[in-house]
């Protein structure tokens, strides 16, 4: 596993991870991605804990966050990030199956930077992921303290 990611993807479903990686590969963004399989791992990465102890310093340029996660769910991760002085500047994009308004409202209330519903249609899905990756990892100027581009 690459420990020097600029995109932190938090996704528990291996199929969704594969589909997302496939989409990112098309723009050669896949080697920028670090994967956390649940909320706890995501926080471990951000706080240099557990298996991420001793990783290179710096925050990811963007965090792709699923909402429905085992152990610590997406909204809890989001809340933790946005209430931590060192982490709150990380752009967080919620990437979820849920079109439910209450998830959307809760995320925006917690200060999410974008909310994307995963389209069922594969082409749309690939396009959405590509655009996300390109925008946040390439076009957007990440906040100071982010991991530099290789």
């Amino acid at each position, binding site marked *: 596993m690459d420990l020097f990611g600029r995109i932190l993807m938090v996704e528990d479903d291996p199929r969704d991870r594969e*589909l997302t990686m*496939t989409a990112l590969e098309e723009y050669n963004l896949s080697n920028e991605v670090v994967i956390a399989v649940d909320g706890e791992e995501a926080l471990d990465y951000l706080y240099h804990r557990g298996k991420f102890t001793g990783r290179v310093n710096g925050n990811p340029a963007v965090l792709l966050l699923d909402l429905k996660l085992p152990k610590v769910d997406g909204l809890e991760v989001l809340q933790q990030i946005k209430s931590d002085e060192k982490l709150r500047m990380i752009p967080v994009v919620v990437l979820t199956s*849920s079109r439910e308004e209450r998830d959307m409202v809760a995320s925006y209330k917690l200060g999410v930077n974008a909310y994307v519903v*995963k389209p*069922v249609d*594969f082409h749309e899905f690939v396009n959405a992921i590509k655009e996300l990756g390109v925008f946040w990892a390439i076009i957007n100027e990440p906040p100071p303290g982010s991991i530099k581009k290789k």
Partner: protein
Amino acid sequence: MAQDKPPLARIPAALQRYGLAVVSVGAALGIALLLGQYRFRGVEFPLFLFAIALSVWYAGIGPGIVAVLLSSVAFDFFFTEPLYTLYVRTSEVPYYILFILFASLLAWFSALRRRVEMALVRSRDELQQEVELRTQQASLLDLTHDTIFVRDMNHVITYWNRGAQELFGWTAEEALGKHSRQLLRTVFPVAIEEIERELLRTDRWEGELERAKADGTAVVVASRWSLRRNDEGIPVAILETNNDITQRKRGEEEVLKLNQKLGERTTELEAINKELEAFAYSISHDLRAPLRHVVGYAEMLEKNASKVLDEKSRRYMTTILESAKRMGILIDDLLAFSRIGRAETRQTLVSLDQLVKEVRSEVAQETDARNISWKVGALPELYGDRSMLKLALVNLISNAVKFTRTRTQPQIEIGCAERPSDGVVMFVKDNGVGFDMKYVNKLFGVFQRLHRADEFEGTGIGLATVQRIIHRHGGQVWAEGLVDQGATFFFSVPSQRR
């Protein structure tokens, strides 16, 4: 003449009063002289005294003095020697003085007696008035149907009005003199000592009491007590008014019970609603994910293996993809449909005119290529949830667009059918394929379709959504149609703000 008047009334005019004195003395003189003719001697003295007394009694002190003087003169002139002169012999002077003194004493007594009598009469009259007033008040208290009774500080009933008789069933004769608590078997809500403390402190008490009627049935009364004190401030009696609140009490208990039941039902419904919401949420999350995987992996497989797949296998792939996509649409529509039932409506003034314009521009992509003739009438404003009403119009208008696809000259008419006093009735009419009125009841059901999927695409949720939206606005939906002659969909929305 005095006899016609009330016994103690004085003669009002001075002339008459002094006249009475003169006439009385004159009459006494006349009678004495007349009796003198028949040798009755010595009657003049009492006659003159009677005339004086009469004058004082009926005419007062002044005329009394006049009567005394006149009597003295007449006595001297007619009855003392020498007769018919006013000359008084020295030997007669004490006799005169005695007469005048006696007459004056009589006059004084008469006046005194009169004053006493007057005072007596006055106090008797006052007493009578008081008695009348009290009687009147007591009968007034009997007029009211409110229960009023009075008891002394030993709880012995001293007054019992008709209302009390009506409520408790005991007559005044039965109740008076009885111990109120024993008679009425009163059940107090709090300790009686506490009530008495409050009564003595504030002079009043109010509360609900349970009491027993003469026939033994229980009655709940709203009771008000007022403490009466005498002039020294010592409590002497308690006046109680009672109102029968048995019925109200029973009603309150019933309402309480019903409220409890309602509360339970509400909790149940809330639980069901929560379950439904959790269900919809889980569909939204968990059902879409595997579907996305089916589509995603099928796409990737198609991409990787398209070279090795034959025509038949490629068609299988396409079918898998189409079916999965269709299921995605179904899930989305179903969620939207269930959301309408769960979401709160936000009422604002909505311009139907504006809404129709927006919807038409949304379907423009599909309609631009076709030569649809639109006819949109004047549309009113109404109170409703804007986004929901728009969704209803999107469904109705896109249906009209869809089902006129086979027409060479498609026509869609949107307008206001009528303006009933209490709302708006709007219609969307097309000259499309229409439907058989036989199946009109199936039109608005979920997943009900009157056309095959290969004729006209659709999930069968659109009209069900329309119906649910309009029902949530308190309105109705209905449709008219003929096969191949087009269809008209109506909906009504009451105008009052709900």
